[in-house]
């Protein structure tokens, strides 16, 4: 697909103008990249060999000289008072080097840190944990948000268990409801989800004199560094954080972890490096989760489908932490003049929440998109038509600033064609038979513009070899590879010619890898550095070749005269002209004001529901995304495939289960906590609309981490609705819920 064939109205004029300028030989931004040879193509990962041979080192694969192993004793109770703690027996176990207390007073959730041990082996540390004697006084707990809001429920923090944390309004919803011809109110619920990264969290801390070095399984090397400095009261300049390979984060490895601080404290206590690796149970209990939600949407529309008002109330529970803000999609994505939002967090005696791939948007989209489908049925409209009818070209439902680019209409068009949208049940549930088929759609919005000020250096050595150096982290998205691709593209080299150095806070600053911000932060910074390097080389060569620098092109490991390609020097010879190794600093520029920068997408799902067993099978998903310029088509597709697989998992299986009576998690493992396996995967068709954003950055690229994770659970639920005529309004949609709904429907008919 040619990139400029597809543009929303919004963008067309700008691109035309840019092309006109380009024709006149003037400077234009991203579109100049039409001639890219590597960017936009599928590129295999440059570090693939390391991964497939088992040589890629993850934190737990590292062993330092004299290293000790730490383990943490955690509260088995959801709510208790520590009356006393006796460390002496543990301290006396041979091989134990240090035992420290981590908690006094009250523990508020199962898995809270109580004490820690450093010993010469993991097994010794584990044995020592069993020798720590803790006397607990068990206190009443509450683990369900429905109960935590009741009068007389055990109080979690000093303040009340329910706390309003967000409100928003525009227009006048009461006036809107008065004008509406159809009004609907529905409540949607989502369960607590656990990240369950393949690699459990791990850190190694090492002190040299007063300098602390930490190897961490993290998505955010710089924020771990800053957090350690703050927590330990040492200057940031004395802390270095290194991130090698990391086995999945999805938000649970953003920011500093408590156990990393424990490793640092034990390293200080013992004078030796200390490694700590959490186990699966710990990963299930205390490194974060996606908050549950109960979202009530009341909305009104005209008979023709024009939305006139939307109100939303969200009760969200993130355990001892905060719930998620889920209103953004409802506030932003559809044209609607009157909107009111209230969001409340409910505290319980369970582990604290953490950002989970597309925090708030997954739950908010599930509710909003489900509501729209139910509204469409009420109005007798095609759900896709209802969405198109309320399409907005400016944010805040058309009441805010214009989107810099928005390819959502194109997503609808391509997706509907690919899935065969006309095959859907015109009336939900109208198909018969034991196996019911249905189609569903859901839209997506996310930010992902990247962070201005992100830095990257390009170093060219005198032998012509090239390094890109940036403190960012590759969390599985192929960051190393696109860095190499961009540098190679700009300098006329091959990706494998570029040495990529990342994942270390001694390198130039880059933001945390979360929120889809890595690519739109790092890629432009690398491009900027590479353009500067290219410019410098052109100038040097222009003297040698005696032609103007503007005529020189870098390609095929050469610099040559574009009017006379035979006049050339090799890249290697050009590098010699630099005289000594040269560093070029790149920076991600500011975002031009006056525009909203968002990514968009639409997922179309096809499901089969077995009315006898209640089993749902997702057969096919067409995922169409507007993420600006795609830099590496191969890894971009993987992002989409992964987002969909996780979202199908959320829709059908995932739920943290807690025993009300004990306050303990029943499924802190991968057997009880179900995630998608190879048997549950639909056919997945990723499509990119290739709409290059004209302003967002020098490559016109947006982030892709969260987008494919956002609409999928909603699209699957809507497809189930289309199949059986009942919206389950609750995920995971386990067979028992399906069967119960079907029985209810029969009873009513």
């Amino acid at each position: 697909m040619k990139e400029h064939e597809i543009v929303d109205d919004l963008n067309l004029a700008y691109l035309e103008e840019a092309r006109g300028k380009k024709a006149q030989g003037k400077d234009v931004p991203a579109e100049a990249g039409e001639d890219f040879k590597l960017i936009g193509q599928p590129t295999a990962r440059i570090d693939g060999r390391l991964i497939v041979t088992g040589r890629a080192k993850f934190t737990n694969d590292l062993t330092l000289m004299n290293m000790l192993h730490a383990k943490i004793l955690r509260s088995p109770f959801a709510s208790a008072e520590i009356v006393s703690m006796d460390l002496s027996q543990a301290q006396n176990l041979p091989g134990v080097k240090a035992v420290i207390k981590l908690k006094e007073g009250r523990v508020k959730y199962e898995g809270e840190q109580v004490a820690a041990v450093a010993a010469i082996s993991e097994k010794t540390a584990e044995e020592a944990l069993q020798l720590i004697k803790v006397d607990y006084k068990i206190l009443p707990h509450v683990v369900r948000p429905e109960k935590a809001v009741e009068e007389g429920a055990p109080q979690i923090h000093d303040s009340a268990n329910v706390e309003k944390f967000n409100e928003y309004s525009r227009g006048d919803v009461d006036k809107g409801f008065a004008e509406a011809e159809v009004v609907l109110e529905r409540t949607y619920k989502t369960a607590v989800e656990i990240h369950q990264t393949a690699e459990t969290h791990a850190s190694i801390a090492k002190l040299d004199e007063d300098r602390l070095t930490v190897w961490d399984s993290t998505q955010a090397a710089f924020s771990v560094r800053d957090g350690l400095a703050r927590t330990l009261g040492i200057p940031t300049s004395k802390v270095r954080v290194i991130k090698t390979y990391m086995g999945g984060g999805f938000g649970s490895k953003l920011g500093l972890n408590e156990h990393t601080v424990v490793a640092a404290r034990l390293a200080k206590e013992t004078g030796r490096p200390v490694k700590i690796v959490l186990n699966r149970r710990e990963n299930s209990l205390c490194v974060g989760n996606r908050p549950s939600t109960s979202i009530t949407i009341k909305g009104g529309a005209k008979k023709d489908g024009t939305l006139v008002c939307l109100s939303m109330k969200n009760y969200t529970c993130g355990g001892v932490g905060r719930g998620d803000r889920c209103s953004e999609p409802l506030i932003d994505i559809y044209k609607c003049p009157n909107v009111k939002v209230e969001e409340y967090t409910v505290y319980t005696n369970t582990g604290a929440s953490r950002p989970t791939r597309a925090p708030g948007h997954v739950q908010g989209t599930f509710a909003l998109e489900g509501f729209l489908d139910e509204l469409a049925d009420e109005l007798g409209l095609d759900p896709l038509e209802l969405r198109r009818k309320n399409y907005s070209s400016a944010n805040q439902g058309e009441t805010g600033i214009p989107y810099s680019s928005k390819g959502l209409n194109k997503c609808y068009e391509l997706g509907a064609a690919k899935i065969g949208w006309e095959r859907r049940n015109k009336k939900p549930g109208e198909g018969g038979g034991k196996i019911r088929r249905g189609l569903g759609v859901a839209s997506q919005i996310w930010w992902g513009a990247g962070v201005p000020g992100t830095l990257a250096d390009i170093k060219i050595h005198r032998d012509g070899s090239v390094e890109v150096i940036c403190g960012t982290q590759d969390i599985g998205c192929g960051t190393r590879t696109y860095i190499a691709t961009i540098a190679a593209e700009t300098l006329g080299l091959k990706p494998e010619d570029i040495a990529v150095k990342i994942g270390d806070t001694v390198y130039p600053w880059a933001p945390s890898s979360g929120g889809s911000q890595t690519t739109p932060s790092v890629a432009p910074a690398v491009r900027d550095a590479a353009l500067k390097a290219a410019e410098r080389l052109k100038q040097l060569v222009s003297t040698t070749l005696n032609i103007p620098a503007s005529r020189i092109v870098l390609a095929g490991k050469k610099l040559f005269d574009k009017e006379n390609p035979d006049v050339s020097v090799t890249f290697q010879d050009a590098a010699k002209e630099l005289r000594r190794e040269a560093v070029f600093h790149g920076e991600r520029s500011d975002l031009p004001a006056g525009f909203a920068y968002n990514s968009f997408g639409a997922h179309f799902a096809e499901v089969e529901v077995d009315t006898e067993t209640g089993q749902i099978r997702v057969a096919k998903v067409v995922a169409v995304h507007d993420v600006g310029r795609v830099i590496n088509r191969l890894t971009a597709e993987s992002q989409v495939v992964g987002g969909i697989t996780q979202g199908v998992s959320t829709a059908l299986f995932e739920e943290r289960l807690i025993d009300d009576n004990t306050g303990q998690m029943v499924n802190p493992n991968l057997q009880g906590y179900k995630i998608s396996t190879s048997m549950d995967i639909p056919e997945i068709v990723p499509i990119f609309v290739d709409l290059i954003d004209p302003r967002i950055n020098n490559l016109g690229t947006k982030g892709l981490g969260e987008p494919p994770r956002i609409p999928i659970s909603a699209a699957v639920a809507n497809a189930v609705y289309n199949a059986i005529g009942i919206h389950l309004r609750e995920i995971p949609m386990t067979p028992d819920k399906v069967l119960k709904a079907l029985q209810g429907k029969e009873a009513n008919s």
Partner: protein
Amino acid sequence: MEKTSKKRKKTFTRRAFLKGLGGSAAGTALASKFLRRGLAAPPQEMEAAPVHSQKTVTFSVNGRTVSLEVEPRETLLDVLRQKLNLTGTKKTCDRGECGSCTVLLDGQPVYSCLYPAIRVEGKTVTTIEGLAYGDELHPVQQAFIDKDGYQCGFCTPGFIMSSVALLNRNQKPTFPEIKTALSGNLCRCGNYVKIYEAVRTASERMRKA
């Protein structure tokens, strides 16, 4: 450490072994002027650990014969990772739920986290490190690179071992056969679709070769 002499093993404990090493380890520690409480113990005692019964096992791993002492509570996974420094095999759940730790034992895929190390006596183990011939990757490895059969790469060694085992016993697996063969491996990044493609590609290439 892998060639512990058989004669010594009867009286040989980890403790004694480490005592022997104590000098160098303690030397490093003593050189530091910043000794902390935990290091104040006499050097010989420094690496003392609870003593557990041990047994010598001899087996082949990636074509090399190794002989070492293991405790009955140790798993093959821990021995590979901790005693043989073969860290390519990963631990995700440590209880037979995910397949990250898959290795080939006499050609069959097993979860090494469930396999007691003492039972490996006389067997042949192949780990992810033992698949390639020097620089030449196994076709499954190459296909994982070409088809992007990974994201974070943590589950990858396990998936590759399961895929190799599948293609060893079935050169031309159908799509459902591929799915079933991989159903004991979890990929949380969710890249199954790409993994199927990798296995199919490898199967085609291996048949052509």
